């Protein structure tokens, strides 16, 4: 266990990660009920990256996210009801139904513009780093997947930050470790070879280990704040089996927190993912075995999260679609 986290912080982190998971389960459920068009890129399986990384950020820190942004939003404390309403295209959504699943943002929680273009977030993160350095407070965090290093702008972005010493954390979520759906076709042996060649400090961390990610990010942020420099962290993840293009299926089933202490009940086609890769089950089991959490404590956390998501779902469903006559609003200031 990492010395930098108290028991209370550990439980809070697990609760945030579980909220991220239950949020996506609600997204799947709403799609299945035909509440909206139902195209999404879900964050299931990535909770041990976005959760511990983003929960540490301050009000002046800026994050730019991607098509897989739902978990990032919840990790930084965005209202899950407004986020779900946005995914459902409702007027009460974060962006009034204009952005949808691909372009959710909440500047009050430190988000810049969210891009669904591969390589969109990494470029704009450089600008956030430039602005915060000029303004004297805050850092920029670029969130992106492994496929982004196939895009030319990644090289430009890393080069600029290195050359001009901008305070940017490049946080890569590499879910192309194995399997049929590899989104990285980089000729370099390791993703980190690219930033390393541009004189950027790099780290590789197990993206299913919440506290390892927390500690690596904590140290990186401290250095970025102190020295104004870019750092690149590659988090390595097993791709969630439900993560098909566009229409995800809940192939691994609704999360059952009791599996944290009862492994014998893990079953089904994707039992290996649940047993070995599910970051939430792994972290819950770790907190139990270390004595930081109790079974009853975990059940109480889950009950709170479920209650929060039920309220979020009710808020989103109660919110109407935006009035047609507002279609041309907010093109210009």
């Amino acid at each position, binding site marked *: 266990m990492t010395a930098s986290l108290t028991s209370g912080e550990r439980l809070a982190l697990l609760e945030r990660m579980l909220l991220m998971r239950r949020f996506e389960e609600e997204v799947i459920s709403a799609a299945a009920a035909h509440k909206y068009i139902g195209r999404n890129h879900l964050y299931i399986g990535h909770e041990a990256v976005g959760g511990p990384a983003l929960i540490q950020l301050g009000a002046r820190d*800026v994050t730019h996210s991607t098509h897989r942004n739902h978990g990032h939003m919840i990790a930084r404390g965005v209202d899950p009801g407004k986020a779900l309403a946005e995914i459902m295209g409702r007027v009460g959504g974060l962006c009034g139904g*204009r952005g949808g699943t691909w*372009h959710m943002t909440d500047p009050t929680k430190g988000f810049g*513009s969210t891009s669904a273009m591969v390589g*969109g977030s990494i470029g704009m993160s450089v600008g956030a780093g430039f602005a915060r350095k000029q303004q004297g407070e805050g850092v920029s965090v670029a969130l992106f997947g492994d496929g982004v290093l196939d895009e030319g*702008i990644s090289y430009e972005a890393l*080069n600029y930050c290195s050359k001009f010493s901008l305070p940017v954390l490049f946080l890569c979520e590499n879910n192309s470790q194995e399997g049929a759906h590899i989104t990285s076709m980089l000729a370099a042996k390791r993703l980190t070879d690219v930033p390393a060649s541009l004189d950027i400090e790099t780290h590789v961390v197990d993206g299913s280990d919440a506290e390892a990610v927390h500690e690596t990010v904590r140290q990186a942020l401290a250095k970025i704040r102190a020295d104004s420099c870019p750092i690149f962290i590659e988090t390595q993840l097993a791709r969630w089996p439900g993560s098909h293009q566009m229409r995800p299926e809940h192939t691994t089933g609704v999360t059952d927190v009791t599996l944290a202490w009862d492994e014998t009940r893990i079953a089904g086609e994707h039992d290996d993912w649940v047993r070995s890769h599910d970051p939430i089950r792994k972290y819950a089991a770790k907190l139990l075995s270390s004595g930081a959490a109790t079974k009853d404590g975990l059940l109480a956390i889950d009950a709170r999260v479920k209650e929060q998501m039920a309220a979020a779902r009710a808020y989103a469903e109660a919110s109407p679609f935006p009035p047609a006559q507002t279609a041309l*609003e907010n093109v210009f200031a």
Partner: protein
Amino acid sequence: MARKTFATGMLDALGHSLQQDPSVAVFGAWSFIVGRGLPAEQEEAFFEKYGDRLIDPPTSESVIAAMATGAAVCGMRPFVNFGTSSFAFEAWNQIINETGNARFMSNGQLKAPLVFHMYCGIRGGGAAQHSQSPQSMFANAPGLELVMPSTPADAQGLLRTAIKSDNPTIFLTHTKLLQWMGDTPDGDFATPFGKADVKRAGRDITVVATSLMVREALTAAETLAKEGIEIEIVDPRTIVPLDTAAICASVEKTGRLLVAEEAVATCSIASEIITIVAEHALHALKAPPVRVARPSAPLAYAPTLEKVVTPDAEKIVAAVRRMLTK
């Protein structure tokens, strides 16, 4: 009033902006400032005074456009000098998908107050890749203001407005206008967007002209005046927003419309202006409207091949004569 060049008008606007607003930062500063006609000591003073906000980035147009957008969203007011407009095509994805959409996608929560400045037009010997006129491409992308000044006073006043604007603005400077002299109001001033300027009043034909074509139209007007033909030159100055009322009012008066634009005619600003007049003032037209613009072909290097397709005063004169003799 002060006499100054188009280039120094823009530099004065930039200087006032840097002085008054600490959030203004320039990317591509050196090529915008140096060699544009300022005395050496004034150039040096620029860099001494504002050095930390005058940045010369790597040749990385994509990330420059993206970072300007990211910085604008975080409270800065970047002015980006891309150089030749062809180079901005390297940043097409960022300008169209990120910059122009940021405000709308966020439902107005974000704003991207920045200026993308670029040199455009047929400069002489630029061949196909250094003679682009990309105005209608930008006008076709929602969320971007589009400015095409034709005089030193407009260049200064419109650039000041562009930097103050909370919207992203594309600022197109025709390379051949840079050293054009003109009278400019003293001190710091801003010229509003969406207000056309009648550069010459006339009764016979409305000539809507953009950027360098305003100068060509003024030359054409001198020739035509000797023949007793008075053209009215309407300079929209900003394409987005466009002062359609002023254009239509002029056509209502003259009954004839010619649009002079240096870009390829297909789906051009000229096409758009003629469409707008057809929609709103068709009843006033006594003759079919005419475009003086480029044919749809890449631009050749050799001067003979360049000149034959370049819209200029001569071609405007010839088109006006044809319109009036029909």
